[in-house]
């Protein structure tokens, strides 16, 4: 199960409560103030985040006992965790989050007090820093830092990786069944394929408004996926409605299961999801039935690891980050999570030769060049975000 899958299921298992954490968090707690504003980096305007507090000193011994990790569900290979526990003679305890905003609210009011956070993205980072929740990293504990893709050693959202270390990378593209859709035909159609009525009822878009609306923007030739222009956003809405009327799409995050199961033929999806799809193929089905078109203009993204300011086991947290950046450990982790580690050595060749992914999906692998050339989704102002929300609400209203 992927973290997004878990997100969905956890929301479902809450049993239809309409007063969700976001609402509840508004009604109490001892949240820190929101003053100070957000420092948001973009690829064209990278930021070095203001330092708050000091990193731990060099050469400290590891803490004993337990390290508590805040993580998405099934987002770290249990074998990797067990190996780490053995290596340092400690116990790893995991808390699960299903929504970055809700997790930040709980970190702010002290409900969650982890020693290490796994899997947050740059849209959350600005808020984590504004709330003064993170401690600067001491890279003398992270010998494997150099294994990261060069572009991610000094990311635009956290110049110098002062607070964060990148973990997984992915790009958006179109996953499809090669036995149902001719690859050459699909590539010739490009983004237009998502508007092709021939795929009506067999097509899906991700249940993620930023990604889905960006699809409509790309198809119309707009590359600014953080646009604040109301006319452009309205045009994207009309474009999405055209897609809806032409193809009657499913709106979910299950394409990594549904495409291999043969229940749908084509979907706009995250590359990490198609990399995990072969494991969901029925027995005896060749992996060749899975294809992925990686667009020239698309979104690339990554998540990261970071250590809360109040971590009670900061040395172990640094050690765990270092452990996850080890090439062999990262490959082992990928074999369970599916998403691609942001490491130079864990490239297409390594993933294929280790059997982690089939050769037919080589196009879903994001390399340094692709990562650098991709568009990034960054935090929008509340006013602009409201416009994007309205587009999505209108699209899903049917």
């Amino acid at each position, binding site marked *: 199960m992927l973290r997004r899958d878990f997100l969905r299921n956890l929301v479902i298992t809450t049993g239809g409560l309409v007063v969700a954490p976001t*609402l509840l968090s508004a009604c109490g707690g001892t*949240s820190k103030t929101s003053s100070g504003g957000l420092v948001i980096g973009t690829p064209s305007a990278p930021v070095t985040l203001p330092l708050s507090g000091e990193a731990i000193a060099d050469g400290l011994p590891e803490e004993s006992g337990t390290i508590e990790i805040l993580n998405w569900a099934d987002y770290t290979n249990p074998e990797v965790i067990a190996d780490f526990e053995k290596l340092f003679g400690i116990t790893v305890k995991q808390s699960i989050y299903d929504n970055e905003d809700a997790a930040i609210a709980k970190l702010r009011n002290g409900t969650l007090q982890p020693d290490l956070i796994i899997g947050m993205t740059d849209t959350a980072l600005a808020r984590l820093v504004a709330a003064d929740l993170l401690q600067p990293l001491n890279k003398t504990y992270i010998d494997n830092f150099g294994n990261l893709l060069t572009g991610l050693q000094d990311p635009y959202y956290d110049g110098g990786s002062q607070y964060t270390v990148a973990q997984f990378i992915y790009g958006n593209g179109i996953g499809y069944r090669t036995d149902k859709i001719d690859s050459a035909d699909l590539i010739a159609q490009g983004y237009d394929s998502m508007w092709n009525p021939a795929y009506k009822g067999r097509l899906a878009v991700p249940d993620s408004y930023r990604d889905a609306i960006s699809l409509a923007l790309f198809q119309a030739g707009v590359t600014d996926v953080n646009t604040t222009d109301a006319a452009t956003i309205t045009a994207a809405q009309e474009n999405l409605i055209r897609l809806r009327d032409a193809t009657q799409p*499913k709106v979910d995050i299950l394409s990594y299961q549904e495409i291999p199961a043969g229940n749908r033929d084509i979907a706009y999806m995250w590359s990490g999801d198609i990399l995990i799809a072969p494991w969901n193929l029925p027995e005896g089905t060749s992996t060749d039935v899975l294809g992925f078109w990686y667009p020239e203009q698309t979104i690339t993204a990554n998540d990261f690891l970071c250590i809360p300011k109040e971590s009670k086991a900061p040395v172990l947290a640094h050690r765990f980050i270092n452990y996850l950046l080890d090439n062999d450990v990262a490959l082992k982790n990928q074999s369970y999570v599916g998403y691609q580690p942001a490491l130079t050595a864990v490239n297409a060749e390594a993933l294929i030769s280790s059997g982690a992914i089939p050769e037919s999906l080589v196009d879903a692998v994001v390399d340094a060049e692709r990562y650098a050339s991709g568009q990034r989704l960054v935090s929008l102002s509340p006013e602009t975000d409201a416009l994007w*929300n309205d587009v999505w609400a209108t699209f899903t209203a049917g």
Partner: protein
Amino acid sequence: MRRNTRIWNGLAAPGAAWLLTFFAVPFYAVACVAFGSIDPVFRDAIPQWNPLQWDFAQAQDVLASALNGPLRGVFIRTFIFVIAAMMICFLIGFPIAYFLARHAGKRRLLLLTLIIMPFWVNYLMRMLSWVNLLSPSGLFSRFMSNFGIDYNWLDGSPITVVLGLVYGYVPFLILPLYATLERMDWRLVEAARDLGASSRQAFRLVTVPTAKAGVAAAAILIALPMFGDYYTNDLLSRSPKTEMLGNQIDFYINNSSQPQRGAILVMMLSVLLLIALSWYLRSTARVGKEQVR
């Protein structure tokens, strides 16, 4: 006498405190969120506790959308789905409850337990089982294809969502209906028959009116959660064709930076359900009076 009244009033205090703590205060909090603002940095809702400073701009937008915008279709669809599911629930549930109360004899508890037993399994697990059964390669779909019925049940079909709601909520209709019918004075039916009514007339003129309060209670009991349901649609369809009000609330509260809109939709739904509840209370009060007479 006055002392006795005080004691009886005192006994109502825990219930009143419960209502105040778990309904009135949360509902007021929802209103404060609905008419409040959001934190521009953390996107949390900032409730406006002072009603004099409530901001109704978002509410006007949502109301306009519900009357003439995209939300209108969602409201209409939700009502159609819920009413259709309720009607099917009654078609299935009433005969079962009637049989259990009237004809099951000593086996009624055993039969009731057997009927309810599948519903001891978690709702989510039951729906996920249906997803497996209804998928194109699932057992049910393959079985139906033997009869030439090749229908993709999970292809964003309104029928599947309505049937999912029926399956999920029908036991909650059977139980109160059974409770009502089980304690009904069946001598009234016998009297009607003795006076020349056919069995159909006795059912229509005696059984149904007598069971009216139970019918209304059962209807309210299943309608309330069905109106707010979003996970049945999420699991069985997840298509814009079947979007329900609960899905929009879920989006605005959990995944958008406009939690106020979610809170406003919660309030609108609550008002609509309050109207339905008032009807129920009035109808049960009327039935009570008629029975006293």
